[in-house]
């Protein structure tokens, strides 16, 4: 702002009093400070869209969810907006609910088993496709199909296939002499069924990320190892696995956050049932808030927040791992 330097001193003082650049003894100093201030404003202006976006679409919904979980909402108070503040009563209700312990267990089992299976199958396939045999690209593309399908399509298809009476899985089992398995309607099988479907859907993601990780391991290492007489098994454990560790860590952590919040597959296949046998925190939260004619917004939001906290913890672990990688 060139013209400020040409201003007479008294005018400049007026400007100073107006707060643009206070207590500037020398004209030159004032200019740099003003320049810095305007730079700062520019910086803020550039930041504003993102800040606004974050506030509108992330901070506000989170705040609103927290707010919901701390008030006793009935349909009447929801409409009138005068729900009484009840502190942690909703959380206490959720912890005391007979569904809490099974939901926690199912969430843990679902997440762990899905992650282990998705990762190991994905890694095995990635190593397999790394051999670059004929048609390997086409086969690899086929493995991506589950990833490309809308979840409602894959989940509905799985629930048809696993139908007790008319599903293809039981028809096949029947052909080899195994009695019907009530995949979706027996409390001892429903969790297994949704895990199978979710693993099928999650393998492609692991395959793609791990496969690209394998590309970055130099072939010369394998050649050297082969010359030293290392077999395939040895090469995998001494070269592939350790060098893939950073990629593996990210894959597992992203998978964990994703699996923790899986809702659609379970809801479409079993609705969390029968008798809560496949209820996880994600489906329970929805069930409380929307699964009934009379919505329980408070407890539903409380369960949702527990899920957010769990995801946040693992998100922080992810950041820490990422930082460690960056520094090493």
């Amino acid at each position, binding site marked *: 702002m060139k013209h400020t330097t040409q201003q007479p001193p008294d005018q400049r003082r007026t400007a100073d009093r107006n707060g643009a650049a206070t207590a500037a003894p020398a004209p030159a100093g004032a200019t740099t400070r003003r320049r810095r201030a305007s730079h700062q404003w520019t910086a803020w202006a550039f930041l504003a869209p993102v800040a*606004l976006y974050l506030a509108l679409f992330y901070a506000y919904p989170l705040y609103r969810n927290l707010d919901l979980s701390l008030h006793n909402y009935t349909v009447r108070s929801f409409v009138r907006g005068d729900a009484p503040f009840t502190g942690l009563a909703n959380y206490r209700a959720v912890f005391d609910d007979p569904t809490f312990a099974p939901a926690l267990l199912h969430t843990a089992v679902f997440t762990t088993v899905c992650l282990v299976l998705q990762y190991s199958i994905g890694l095995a396939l990635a190593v397999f496709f790394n051999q670059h045999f004929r048609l390997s690209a086409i086969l690899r593309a086929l493995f991506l199909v589950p990833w490309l399908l809308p979840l409602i399509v894959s989940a509905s298809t799985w629930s048809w296939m696993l139908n007790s009476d008319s599903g293809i899985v039981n028809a096949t089992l029947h052909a080899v002499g195994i009695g019907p398995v009530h995949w979706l309607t027996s409390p001892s099988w429903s969790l297994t069924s949704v895990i199978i479907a979710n693993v099928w859907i999650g393998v492609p993601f692991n395959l793609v990320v791990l496969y690209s990780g394998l590309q970055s391991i130099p072939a010369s290492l394998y050649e050297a190892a082969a010359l030293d007489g290392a077999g395939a098994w040895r090469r995998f454990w001494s070269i592939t696995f350790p060098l893939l560790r950073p990629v593996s860590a990210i894959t597992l952590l992203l998978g964990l956050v994703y699996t923790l919040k899986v809702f659609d597959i379970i809801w479409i296949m079993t609705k969390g049932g029968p008798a809560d046998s496949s209820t996880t925190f994600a489906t329970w939260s929805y069930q409380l808030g929307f699964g009934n004619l009379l919505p329980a917004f408070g407890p539903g939001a409380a369960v949702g927040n527990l899920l957010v906290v769990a995801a946040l913890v693992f998100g922080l672990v992810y950041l820490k791992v990422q930082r460690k990688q960056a520094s090493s």
Partner: protein
Amino acid sequence: MNRSARRRLTAAALTVVAVTTGATACSSSGSGSGSGGTSTKASDGGTYTIWDPYPQFDKSSAWTKLLDGCGTEAGVKIKRTAFDTSDLTNKALLAAQQGNSADVLIIDNPVVSTLAEAGVLTSTDDTKLDVSKVSPNLLSAGQSGGKTYGTPIGANTLALYYNNKVLKAAGVDISSVKDWKSLTAALAKVKAAGKKGITFSAIGTEEGSFQFLPWYWGSGAQLTALDSDKAVSALSLWKDWLGKGYAPNSVINNTQTTSWAEFATGDYAFAENGTWQLGNADKAGLDYGVIPVPGIDGGSAAAPTGGEFVTIPVQDDTARYATTQKLVSCLTNSQNLLDTDTTLSYVAPTTEVQDKQAAANPKLKPWVEAVKAARGRTGDNLGTKYPKISEQLWKAVQSALSGSASPKDALGSAQSAVK
């Protein structure tokens, strides 16, 4: 440099403005699409908004024409928005929270008492809506605390469809099916003949409770005591059918639509389903008939009523009620009820129109009888207690049928959870 700095600043400021207005535009259009543009209502007194759960009807449908016709008669323009049934309750609650409810809201009957409790709906005392012709058993779903919060546009209910071909092959005479014992005996014969017995929906949602209620009420049990011996006998009936293979295990996950698909294969002797499947039954080319769900010792069990209510949500501008009342009266006059209920495959809520329907289509006769015997789910002054009871009821059904608890234990824990 200074000029470019300023230009940069201006550009940034413009971006901010663009983004903010963009965001607010989004949010206002977001709520606008939900409210159907009701926010402009105050300035536009000549446009009345109607929300309905019939997305299957588009602009060229008879339903839309009927709405527009009633608007013209009342001298106003109609703006109609159709929602998915499951969406409509939450949309209506949100709209009421924002103070821009529709003028006319057509909503699933068990939700009426919930919305009335929330203070979203006007009573017929406020709007002077005439409901004297409506059958009392149908109107009860919209009553709470001695007031009536709307009028049914039509009703449907459940009954048993049977497949003549399967029954004949199994040597079952349908007239012998009169109570639970004879029905179970018929199912045993059907199974012995290598066919499948009965299909229904016992899914873990409101649909599951809806389907279980005819048996529950047919046993003589009341919704106020889920753990009564009568209630246990109803759940044991279903449990037995599953255990003996008379009903498929998949009923635990069946919606009413998937259950119908099973019946439509032609392998099943019986299916519990609703009035709305009549058209599909003809289309599937089934040789079928319909009987009411039998009570435990004979007679017809009361089935729950389905179908929607036409309601008038609370408005700031109470002067609108007079016109809205005209619109609702037009929608529910005898001729229009006959047309609408024929399209929806519903039974009309007044005896006058029911008789006309039965005369025009004899196949509707058993349904008219079933609707006359039907009960509102939120009746008996249960009101907003019903959703909680219903949730525990479907959970108990799921626990018992899947074998994770005995019918007695399942209903016992259901009753203690309601308290």
